């Protein structure tokens, strides 16, 4: 079984600063990391390869330094990974990103299962997984909680739908978007890190793709444009309840009720 996991490099801190003049995320010099939601997908993929046999590869799109997340994925059990990197890919929205990823997948070959994290911590759109499945013409299940069985070309799984849990089967190849907190991702291994080889990280660019129509990539291939980025307002409101036990409980209950939290 061949498994592919799509991952992304995101800013290392959850408190990302936005340039107040240009409205652009300040990335320069800031530490980066693998998108935390992708860790659950990678953990599920690696544990399935251990359970049912098979290999795990990873795929990302980004600048050359995105190599770091591929190396990290190898340290977590992937056998190798690919960075899709080209200036022509810059400024891509979800449509152009998923199309670029689909071209990368076509170049890499056939996979039985493709995993994506639910969303990223920087873009937060949660659309790339579904659009990638569309571009590849394969089935897609979102909110995957667990994979119970894989047999006869089918995968049996559970997925979350609001307050319901669905039990599903899907024909492979298919794309699964994995929910948050469904497992505890393993930690990167130092032992593997010191043995990572050059050939385990591959770079592909526009020239390598089957479709070399520039209009399909980057800003040119994007159906949407970002007008403005701004940080959400921070809620710093604090209220201290004082008094006797009953009094405090009463006041607290009143507050919870008035905010419709109950």
């Amino acid at each position, binding site marked *: 079984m061949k498994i592919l996991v799509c991952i992304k490099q995101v800013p*290392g*801190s*959850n408190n990302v600063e936005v340039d107040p003049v240009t409205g652009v995320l300040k990335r320069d010099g800031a*530490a980066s*990391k*693998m998108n*935390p939601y992708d*860790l659950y997908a990678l953990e599920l993929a690696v544990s399935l390869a251990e359970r049912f046999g098979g290999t795990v590869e990873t795929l990302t799109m980004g600048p050359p330094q995105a190599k770091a997340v591929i190396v990290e994925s190898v*340290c977590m059990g992937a056998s190798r990974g690919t960075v899709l990197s080209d200036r022509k890919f810059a400024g891509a929205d979800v449509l152009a990103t998923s199309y670029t990823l689909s071209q990368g997948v076509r170049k890499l070959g056939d996979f039985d299962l493709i995993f994506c994290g639910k969303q990223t911590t920087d873009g937060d759109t949660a659309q790339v997984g579904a659009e990638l499945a569309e571009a590849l013409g394969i089935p897609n299940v979102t909110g995957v909680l667990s994979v119970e069985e894989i047999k006869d070309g089918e995968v049996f799984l559970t997925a979350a739908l609001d307050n319901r849990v669905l039990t599903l089967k899907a024909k492979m190849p298919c794309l699964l978007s994995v929910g948050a907190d469904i*497992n*505890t*991702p*393993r*930690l*990167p*291994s*130092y*032992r593997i*890190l010191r043995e990572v080889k050059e050939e385990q990280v591959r770079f592909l660019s526009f020239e390598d793709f089957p479709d070399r129509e520039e209009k399909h990539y980057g800003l040119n291939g994007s159906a949407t444009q970002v007008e403005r980025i701004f940080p959400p307002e921070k809620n710093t409101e604090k209220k201290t309840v004082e008094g006797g036990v009953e009094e405090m409980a009463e006041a607290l209950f009143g507050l919870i009720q008035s905010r419709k939290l109950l």
Partner: protein
Amino acid sequence: MYHKLTEEDVFALRELVGEEAVLFGDQISRDYAKDELGGIERMPEAVVTVRSEEQVVRVMRYAYEKTIPVTVRGSGTGLVGGAVPKEGGILLHTAKMNRILELDEENFTVTVEPGVLLMDLAAFAEEHDYLYPPDPGEKSATVGGNISTNAGGMRAVKYGVTRDYVRGLTVVTPTGEVLHLGGKVAKNSTGYSLKDLIIGSEGTLGIITEAILKLLPLPKYSVSLLVPFKDRKSAIEAVPKIIRSEVTPTAVEYMAKETILYAENYLGKKFPDTSSDAYILLTFDGSTEGQIEADRKTVAELCLSLGAPDAYLIDTEERKKAVWSARGAFLEAIKASTTEMDECDVVVPVGKIDEFIDYTHRLAEETGLRIPSFGHAGDGNLHIYLCRDGLGEEEWEEAKKACFDGMYEKAASLGGLVSGEHGIGYAKKEYLKKQYGEGPVSLMQGIKRVFDPKNLLNPGKICF
């Protein structure tokens, strides 16, 4: 000998500190009768919540005049019965004296009232790009309580303990006099260090009303390393070798698989790896990413050469949370795994940790008690828990006594001491006397008499 509080005293106290600030009789919650140590309880006759040094002085003068015992209490998170008002009297509640008074950026100090919580102090320091290094597990403890027990915590390997960060103290004596000890100065050879006598005195010599604490610049980077070992012995044996290497980790914690599983159960969350029997968790901090990466590499290589099957990298907020939240929950997780527990906080020379833990395992076999442990492997401070589980009262007391007697004797024979960071309070008095003997104990008693001739402050603790 002590005066029992009357309605008249309560009236007088209310005149001194305000009507609402004094609880008497039925108004007092049972929480004020105990701390986090199970088994020892005593109701105070009055709980007086003070909000200023002036109020502390007034209450103390009144108590001195009337010969009423006074026990100071912060958050009540102690583990040796230190805040239990053993002789009744007044429980002086200082948790509401919780203002951060001054940040002095020229002298790298912060001045606080004793009721400031450790977590609030840590957050305040971080907001201003400083680090207050003492980092005991119980973040809701007050700074006053930390100073009174000379609390240590996980960063002691690199940064030392609370005592190393107390520059000055303002203290109200049992006669109601206000003393200013030490100050913002970095050095002090000015006579006996009275400030250092107050640190660790567990509220028996004076009441801390203000503390000047030293801060450090906040290290910009921090990473951790979780190193699995095939068994406890190889894990513990690696620790002195790590400390002897040219790298100084901030924290070196020992975690047994058994304890990790309790934490998993308690938190309902899987730990990233439980395939090995023993783990060492290390942290490195510093001002450049390159430096801590190099430190981590040195230690990872060393551990692999010592037979560790791997070394796992912990470099993001999510990974730190997954590992450290389990470490932080150990005490509560063990507590939740049994009906009642008691603990031993011995400190032994770093090279003797394995021998000591080995001894606790033998004790567990001999007595049939379950004895989980974890500890600050980097400084030799161990937390060992006796779990009652299904034992009857009598059997429990008997087994507990046999274990404690054995453990403190063993620790002493290895050059260790009764308490690394929790203090003596009421629960460990007997063992302090046994280990130190007549000479040091009578010196301690003499010091106590000079400070507190009427034996009013926290009577029945440490050496009396």
